[in-house]
């Protein structure tokens, strides 16, 4: 019987298998950042262990970094200590780090792909749940905890139990104005936050094939939000064109050899999946979350659901709690709800294409009075590209705040936070209680919807703007 894409990559990385132990997988790329690595390095020191492959390990500073005044020392002393700890650890163990202000610095899941570090067929791990992003290249990429970070540092491998396989097929063609973000929110609406637990998801179908690499990264990025171990997409010409000429990609004969291998990375026709989900792309309009988990999704054109309509008691109670936390009434039209803040950024939607689509909506329009806005590019490379294209001028002229790269308001570890009760349309990936700052109320949307909402002052799509 044929194999799925993820099974092929898995098998190609088996260091050992059997004997009552989980499969031991070799890791091709280990990305690290300041938040989930300090205790792992401490563990190495405590046990007198070395980093096995510093050459396959790359670090950057993203979660804590401020997005303003980055020529000044970080004001938060605890954040500063964490950043300095990463610098000391990477120096001690001989690992490349891209620090704040460096031309290669940025969100770990933005810089891996743009530097060509992430390639098809690889295993990629990082102490960060959104590592699934790298699956867009046909890599098996997943988030790990700090104990596993230590394990990979020490051994360049990870013991992993075999996962189920899941296919998520999105057929047809997206309506104009719908994006990869709307697709993944629609998937979350369909399968819920637990629908992918225990499985590696492969995204397939015409909609996926027609997405750019940026769109595919957005899609794979949120695989963890439905609990999948990883999400991935078979590499194709779009993938190869994106990678050609990137700093860390092979050249000349090495490139040809790599492409020949990459072309073997697809799910065989006679392979079967343990779980299958099929969506009709033509029905996916712009989406928005209304609650406090990313499975609580409605179309922007829809109304807040009534908890009484949920058959499952756990879902009903979750909906009731979510409405209370979010300060919303069942039945309200989404477009009637006004926002205080709009955040464009995060490893989900901070790449150049996201900023282009956002700027296209912003051009010639102004942010509504009283709405706070942040546009935070995913990396310095993205920021410089956007500035070369003049996108920053469009944002600034429209009244958006143009910032320095980092994770920023996605998770409120730097000074960019929501305050109690503040309502935010955000292009990030989690609408959990307090995620963007204590008491903050997050609604996940695409960059196009975020900009339209900033301009209207309430939830809106670009088509709603005059």
């Amino acid at each position, binding site marked *: 019987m044929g194999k799925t894409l993820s099974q092929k990559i898995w098998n190609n990385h088996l260091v050992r298998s059997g004997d009552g132990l989980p499969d031991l997988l070799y890791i091709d790329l280990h990305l690290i950042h300041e938040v989930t690595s300090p205790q792992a390095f401490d563990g190495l020191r405590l046990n007198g262990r070395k980093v096995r492959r510093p050459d396959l390990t790359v670090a950057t500073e993203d979660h804590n970094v401020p997005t303003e005044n980055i020529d000044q020392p970080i004001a*938060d002393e605890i954040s500063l*200590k964490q950043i300095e700890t990463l610098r000391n650890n990477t120096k001690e163990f001989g690992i490349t780090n891209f620090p704040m202000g460096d031309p290669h610095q940025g969100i770990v899941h933005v810089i891996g792909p743009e530097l060509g570090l992430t390639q098809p067929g690889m295993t990629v791990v990082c102490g960060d749940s959104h590592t699934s992003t790298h699956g867009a290249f046909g890599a098996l990429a997943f988030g790990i905890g700090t104990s596993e970070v230590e394990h990979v540092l020490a051994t360049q491998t990870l*013991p992993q139990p075999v996962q189920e396989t899941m296919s998520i097929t999105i057929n047809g063609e997206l309506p104009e104005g719908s994006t990869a973000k709307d697709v993944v929110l629609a998937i979350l609406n369909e399968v819920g936050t637990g629908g992918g637990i225990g499985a590696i998801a492969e995204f397939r179908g015409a909609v996926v094939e027609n997405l750019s690499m940026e769109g595919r990264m957005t899609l794979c990025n949120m695989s*963890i939000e439905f609990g999948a171990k990883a999400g991935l997409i078979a590499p194709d010409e779009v993938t190869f064109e994106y990678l050609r000429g990137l700093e860390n990609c092979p050249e000349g004969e090495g490139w040809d050899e790599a492409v020949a291998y990459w072309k073997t990375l697809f799910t065989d026709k006679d392979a079967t999946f343990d779980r299958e989900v099929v969506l009709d792309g033509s029905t996916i309009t712009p989406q928005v979350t209304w609650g406090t988990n990313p499975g609580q999704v409605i179309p922007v054109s829809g109304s807040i659901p009534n908890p009484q309509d949920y058959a499952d008691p756990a879902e009903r109670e979750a909906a009731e709690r979510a409405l209370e936390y979010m300060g919303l009434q069942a039945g309200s039209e989404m477009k009637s709800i006004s926002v205080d803040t709009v955040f464009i950024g995060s490893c989900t939607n901070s790449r150049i294409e996201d900023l282009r689509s956002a700027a296209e909506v912003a051009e010639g329009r102004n942010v509504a009075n009283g709405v706070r806005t942040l546009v935070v590019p995913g990396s310095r490379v993205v920021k410089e590209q956007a500035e070369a294209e003049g996108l920053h001028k469009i944002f600034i002229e429209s009244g958006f705040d143009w910032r320095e790269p980092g994770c920023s308001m996605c998770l409120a570890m730097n000074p960019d936070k929501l305050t109690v009760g503040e309502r935010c349309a955000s292009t990030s990936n989690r609408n959990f209680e307090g995620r963007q700052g204590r008491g903050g109320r997050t609604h996940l949307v695409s960059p196009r919807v975020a900009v339209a909402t900033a301009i209207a002052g309430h939830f809106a799509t670009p088509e709603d703007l005059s």
Partner: protein
Amino acid sequence: MKPVVVIEGTAVPLDRSDVDTDQIIPSDWLKRVERTGFEKGLFSEWRDNKDFVLNNADYSGANILLAGPNFGTGSSREHAVWAIQQAGFDAVISPRFGPIFKNNSTKNGLVPVEIESSVAEELMQQVQRDPNLYFVIDIAKRSLEVTQLGITIDFPLESSIQDRFLKGLDDIAITLEHTNAIETFEKHRNSWLQRQ
């Protein structure tokens, strides 16, 4: 990791679904570089509410967290596991766990006890009624027992993880025994994957 063989004691009923790791330990706590001192961060935003179940003195001695479905979804932060353990919990019972949280638990000796929704719901009601219900979680038998309710059920625990729990084994030490296999694998990696 210390061996974990049998866990017994009472439980706190955390009757909510989708308790994500941002709730378990808010991101402010993630700036710390230490591995200890996270107990005060556990559910710190919810604990400000005096009615939150962890503030209820009736459950103050509990060492088992009984949670709703989809416990520990979201972020990979292992700090969530450290906080739960450092606050005095040895096991978490839920019908379904966030995958990274579950994996992190097994690396630290926090036992993730995954049980049927119907049983979990019954336990939730019973523990809300009687804080003194006594739970016995036996790792060797992979079983959860609440004698007062006449409940004995099995829960899944992969045999290699069970073995690590029982013997208190270090995952890295186990893998380092296979260093030869790692070296052999490295000799055959695709040439373009070698970085300078």
